[in-house]
């Protein structure tokens, strides 16, 4: 029976059913293909997000124990040698066959005299000492976002490293891998420098003492910021939080904090020699928190003025009471 005004009831044939099915399948496939084509597999930082791994880097030498030496003087290379000797000698930390990474601060393409970056004299001497201790290779790296090649060259770090037999690794987008820091709130599925760490057995951080407009100070822990990729500037919204997580991220073999000249004003870039103050100090230690607590005093601050240091100390990432490590004080005239 048909209702009034209608024709025979349409019936779908098998052929029609298959055609409709094919059309529906094609529509689904096209939609899926479009979605796959538009999907950004490499969001802003251009890093591989295929697997977010644990990015922690522990290169500490536990047998060496916590040690700190504070050298005074003007000659960076001489201070470094004396401070290293005071913590047991470079051989205590670098063994024959080690592959060493020097994480420098090469964030800005500015001349070394401005104190915004790691001084090339320190890079050269440290690379030479590592080589002399039997290191198989020494790599110098950092991740300055803007014009990395210029940063390494204009700071003098690149030339100094190469002259001392070290290689300079300039990160590229593929050098990072997504990592999620266990217990971290900010470093989650975030690009962390990975490529140059392949085969690395020891890590030494080398940073200058600088005031920092936002963080209060930029020293050895803030220096690990250069291991992060992506649009990391947003971390400035929680600068103390990210520095604490950097302390969680990296356990170095040693850190060298250069307070020969400290940037007292207009940090972290500075720009004028007038921003610097001769503080004539170089710190070598296994504990970055202790290094920064000591470095803060060169800026006329206490670790209590730097919330990230207080928090790092509370988390047991090091000690803010650097005096408790019984620093070996190495005066200039000792050389």
């Amino acid at each position: 029976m048909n209702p009034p005004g209608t024709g025979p009831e349409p019936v779908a044939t098998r052929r029609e059913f298959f055609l409709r099915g094919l059309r529906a399948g094609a529509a689904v496939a096209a939609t899926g293909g479009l979605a796959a084509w538009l999907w950004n597999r490499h969001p802003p930082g251009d890093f591989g997000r295929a697997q977010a791994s644990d990015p922690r880097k522990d290169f500490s030498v536990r047998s060496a124990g916590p040690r700190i030496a504070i050298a005074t003087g003007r000659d960076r290379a001489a201070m470094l040698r004396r401070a290293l000797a005071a913590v047991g000698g470079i051989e205590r930390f670098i063994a024959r066959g080690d592959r060493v990474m020097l994480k420098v601060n090469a964030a800005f393409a500015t001349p070394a005299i401005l104190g915004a970056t790691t001084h090339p004299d320190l890079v050269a001497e440290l690379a030479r000492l590592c080589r002399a201790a039997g290191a198989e290779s020494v790599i110098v790296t950092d991740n300055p976002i803007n014009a990395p090649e210029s940063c390494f060259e204009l700071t003098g770090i690149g030339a100094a490293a190469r002259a001392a037999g070290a290689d300079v690794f300039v990160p590229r987008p593929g050098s990072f891998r997504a990592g999620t820091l266990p217990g971290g709130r900010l470093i989650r599925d975030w690009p962390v420098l990975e490529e140059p760490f392949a085969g690395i057995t020891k890590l030494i951080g080398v940073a200058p003492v600088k005031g920092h407009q936002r963080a209060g100070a930029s020293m050895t822990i803030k220096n690990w910021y250069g291991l992060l990729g992506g649009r990391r500037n947003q971390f400035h919204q929680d600068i103390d939080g990210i520095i604490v997580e950097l302390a969680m991220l990296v356990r170095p073999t040693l850190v060298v904090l250069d307070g020969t000249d400290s940037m007292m004003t207009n940090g972290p870039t500075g720009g004028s020699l007038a921003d610097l103050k001769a503080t004539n100090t170089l710190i070598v230690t296994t504990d970055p928190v202790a290094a920064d607590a000591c470095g803060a005093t060169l800026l006329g601050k206490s670790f209590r003025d730097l919330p990230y240091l207080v928090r790092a100390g509370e988390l047991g990432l090091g000690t803010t009471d650097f005096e408790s490590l019984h620093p070996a004080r190495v005066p200039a005239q000792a050389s």
Partner: protein
Amino acid sequence: MGDAESAACKAHCPLQELVLRRPKVLSLRGITNAMRRGGPPGWAPVAGQFMHSFWQTMRRCGHGQSISSQSVGWPSCRLPTGMQRSKARSPGPGERAIAACALAVLAAVLAGVCIQQARFDPAVVMSAAGPPAAAATTMPGLLERWPAGLLPMSGAEAFSPGTLSDKIDGKADLYLSAGFVSLNDQRVALTGGSGSWMEVLVFDMGVPANAFSVYSSQRRPNAADAGIADYSYEADNELCLVHGRYYVELVCSDSSDAARRAAETLARAFVGATKVADHANIGAEQALFPPEGLIAGSIALVPSDVFGFDRLKNVFVARYRDGGNEVTLFAANRGGPDGAAREAAEIRSFFVVDCGGRETPAPPAPPGASIIDLGGSFEAVFSAGPYVAGVHQAPDLGSAQRWLAVLSRRITGGRQ
């Protein structure tokens, strides 16, 4: 379908009744009756009755075992044409399985989207906020013609508010809070084999006041005036200036005479080649501060977060020698007495409530002034006409009172 079958359908199918007797069932009574017929006894809630009736209808007409689509007389229950064939037979097990799979896939996609969106992914957030670092563009050059003795080392680069921190890291906040628009940057080398070079940074701050703000906030102590453009100074290896809306830094790789001379030449060339609509002039604000004891070059316009108070913005400050100590005076024009008085009250509240200060007995002049003891230093604040002004970090009460009196006389012209 025969009449008997049609009658059977009518007898059991409230939905059919709804359709066939549309004029009636569109009334509330008709709907209620239709529902009641299909619902079990005791189903009081109307919604419950409706759902029960609908389910029965579907079961009988669409999936019924007792009444087939043929026997029910489908046209009598006719719904919109597209639905007819789906009602014509029950879906087979394969169709049900495919439908279940499709729903499962959709549910999985929904769950995935929810999980991903719930997780904080700053990289994605920032990608929407600004272009990546590589977006710093290379331009032909800051100047069409460079002065003799200077050669570009590279093309110019440009930075926006979204990429400024790629260039100057943690110092970007200073510029951003002061109204930063763009940065153009280029390095040039001195010819003659000295190896010296300099970096030229041209910050477009939008308006001259903003340019003066970042200039004055970073002015190096003991810097010498360079006598170029609206304001300028030279500090060792660096020359900084304000030219209208532009704040310019020329940073030399050393402080040799040749480098400094080249910086001065380049600064003058830039000023000559760059037309600006307005010039920076803080003469009126400068006049608010007494000249006695003023530390040269210390007048600055602080754009934000003045004295750690996040709501205090765009305040002129000046540093003074006070015996062996240093005192800061501040003043800002708020457009009218009401705004100035309101802000003075806010500053007073900030020091008392937020900083835990204790208000001392009010000084005799100026009227309405407050002095707050912060335990080791003293703050003072008052308003006069459109101005809110005061003293910051006076070493003792006497110093705070003295500077307060001097500043209020200066601002009011002795009218109070």
